[in-house]
């Protein structure tokens, strides 16, 4: 039986503020009968004005006052803070029910009366169990947005999980705010990090990838307010699963989402074959995140990105990837290191990929000398006849190469086959001879 009454606690503490331990002791010393007695509760409510606690030693004066003081609506903060300003104050279940008066006063809600949010408190003393504060009373728009989002479950995602202590909320433009742009990743990271709540729901731990990304770096190291934080792409209250066609992180919407900042690249992308296909409703095309990833955002100049980008293109352009892998460009490129060799997008462009027949394509025959010349200084008309996707196994497409390969293969197989047979026979014969000779000489080491 832990059904202690707020009023009882206060009345029992008529005197100096008590420690929590003392309060618990007194609570547990109460008999069930006392608690069950409604009459006693009534008596206590009338008998314990809140001011009494703050006037130690003036019990008599308090008794005089209580005759004058009628039960009055609790409205002003000061009334509530008389008890709740003790920041160590806990209810019987151990929840902190103290309010830092200073922080509350300077918070965005500092001008409100307690009863504005704790609407079910009409008078003092109030019942121990109060209704949950409904933020949507005022913040109806945000609440409505949240309802349709992935965070709709208000038990798992109360407003305070992102906005912090309800009594200390400051405007989001305030650097102390949990939803200040520079603080957002850390706030979301509470759940969306390794071993975070989100991972238990089968979602990836994205926070570590983000903080090491160029976005995360710009935000945390340089403090750039314009750097993309979680909500720049995902939104804030109305976060939708990327499977939802309305979501800004849905595949079809990603180029536009990234294009909010990267406008030039988005324009290039939509001029290219991939962007046009996406706009036409084809989802089997790469979008920004397919190559750059969503959170880690690899640097395109980094080895890791250069190495992994070609197989991404190759996952659709299989024949081109296969022939590319036969070339020196690929062979060296696979090994990583300091020298850069041509990847798909070095020749075909990364964002504005145009068909070869398009005069604006860098691999259009009219532009090849320029394109190849980016790396190969002195590239001429004959040089650009080199085929970066030649297939030495295709007799009709590349006859010269086909026969050269065939000749080289036959030369290799023929020479080796002959000499392997020759050498094995020789080995056997030489050993037999050696054994015989040594046997004839006395059999030592035969």
């Amino acid at each position: 039986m832990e059904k202690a009454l707020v009023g009882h606690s206060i009345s029992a503490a008529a005197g100096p503020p008590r420690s929590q331990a003392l309060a618990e002791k007194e609570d547990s010393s109460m008999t069930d009968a006392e608690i069950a007695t409604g009459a006693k509760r009534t008596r206590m409510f009338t008998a314990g004005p809140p001011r009494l606690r703050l006037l130690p030693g003036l019990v008599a004066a308090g008794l005089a006052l209580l005759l004058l003081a009628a039960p009055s609506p609790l409205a002003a903060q000061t009334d509530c803070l008389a008890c709740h300003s003790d920041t160590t104050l806990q209810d019987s279940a151990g929840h902190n029910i103290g309010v830092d008066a200073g922080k509350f006063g300077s918070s965005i809600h500092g001008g409100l009366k307690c009863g504005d949010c704790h609407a079910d408190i009409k008078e003092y003393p109030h019942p121990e169990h109060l209704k949950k504060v409904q933020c949507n009373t005022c913040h109806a728009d945000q609440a409505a947005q949240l309802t349709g989002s992935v965070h709709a479950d208000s038990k798992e995602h109360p407003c305070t999980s992102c906005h912090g202590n309800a009594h200390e909320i400051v405007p989001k433009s305030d650097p102390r705010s949990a939803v200040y742009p520079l603080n957002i990743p850390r706030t979301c990271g509470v759940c969306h990090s390794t071993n975070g709540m989100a991972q238990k729901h089968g979602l990836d731990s994205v926070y570590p990838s983000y903080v090491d990304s160029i976005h995360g770096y710009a935000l945390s190291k340089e403090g750039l307010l314009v750097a993309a934080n979680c909500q720049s792409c995902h939104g804030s209250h109305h976060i939708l699963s990327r499977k939802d066609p309305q979501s800004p992180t849905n595949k079809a919407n990603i180029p536009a989402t990234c294009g909010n900042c990267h406008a030039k690249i988005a324009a290039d992308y939509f001029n290219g074959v991939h962007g046009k296909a996406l706009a036409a409703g084809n989802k089997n095309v790469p979008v920004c995140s397919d190559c750059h990833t969503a959170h880690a955002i690899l640097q395109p100049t980094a080895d890791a990105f250069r190495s992994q980008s070609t197989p991404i293109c190759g996952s659709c352009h299989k024949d081109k990837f296969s022939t590319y892998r036969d070339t020196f460009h690929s062979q060296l490129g696979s090994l990583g290191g300091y020298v850069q060799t041509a990847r798909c997008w070095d020749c075909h462009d990364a964002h504005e990929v145009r068909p070869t027949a398009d005069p604006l394509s860098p691999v259009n025959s009219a532009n090849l000398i320029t394109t190849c010349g980016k790396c190969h200084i002195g590239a001429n008309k004959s040089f650009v006849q080199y085929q970066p996707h030649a297939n030495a196994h295709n007799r009709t497409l590349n006859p010269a190469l086909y026969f050269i390969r065939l000749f080289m293969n036959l030369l290799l197989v023929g020479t080796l086959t002959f000499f392997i047979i020759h050498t094995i026979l020789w080995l056997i014969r030489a050993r037999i001879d050696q054994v015989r000779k040594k046997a004839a000489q006395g059999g030592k080491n035969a």
Partner: protein
Amino acid sequence: MPDQEHRNDQVVATGGEQSPPPRRFFKRFTPGQRYMHAVLFTTFLVLAATGLPMRFSESLWARGFAGLVGGFGTILFFHKFCALVLSLTFLIHVRDIFSRAFVHREKGVFWGYSSMVANWKDAKDLFGHMRWFVGLGPRPHFDRYAYWEKFDYWAVFWGMIVIGFSGYAMWFAPFFARFLPGWALNAALVIHSDEGLLAILFIFSIHFVNTHLRPGSFPMDMVIFTGVESEEEFEHKRPLEYQRLVREGKLEAKLGEAPGSWQLNFSRVVGFTAIFIGLTLLVLTLSAYFI
């Protein structure tokens, strides 16, 4: 057994009554030839070790090795560096041949028993040798250079030209494109890569076994390192040359010093290291095909 008798005659002829007779060593390779071989196999090993990861760039060991040494920048640097050294060595060798033949008017550079050029006897030796393998005839008597040694030489010679040209064509592609059609640049990689692979497989399996690992030479023929070989070995391996020298009374002119123990030890360390690296590369190459 005629060889054996012959040797005894020789011992008697040189007046050795005391036993055992001193072991004599005869010169086979000049210091220049030995250094050339050393440069050749050193650069070849590096070229193979850096070329194979490029050829098999998709395999794990290639990427692991590349990562270990610092990526293809390093690999390509050493490949090109050794290519230059080897090309230079090759050019020096070609210059030497021509100066011997045309400046010093040396006989037998292009023809004869001491020439590297193949002749009718080599063809006969090849068939005779193979008949001997299967027990159908006597072991042929070889002269200064046996047919498989000539093949090794010309394989390298041809390889130098083919691999060299195709390599430089890729290295200086825009320059070569002034004379060559575009598809030749495609062909250059196919040729370079296949011919290189053939050279690697041949050297690390056939040459190693024929020259070093076969009974009679096992575990290593030291003559290319020390320049000299024992009389016994000389007589057994190249009876025709030995007998000719005896007949013409020129054998003593070929007498060399017995290799010092430091020379043998050094040669063994270098030689076995080369063979170890070669066999490792051979296994890796084969693993790229079969695993």
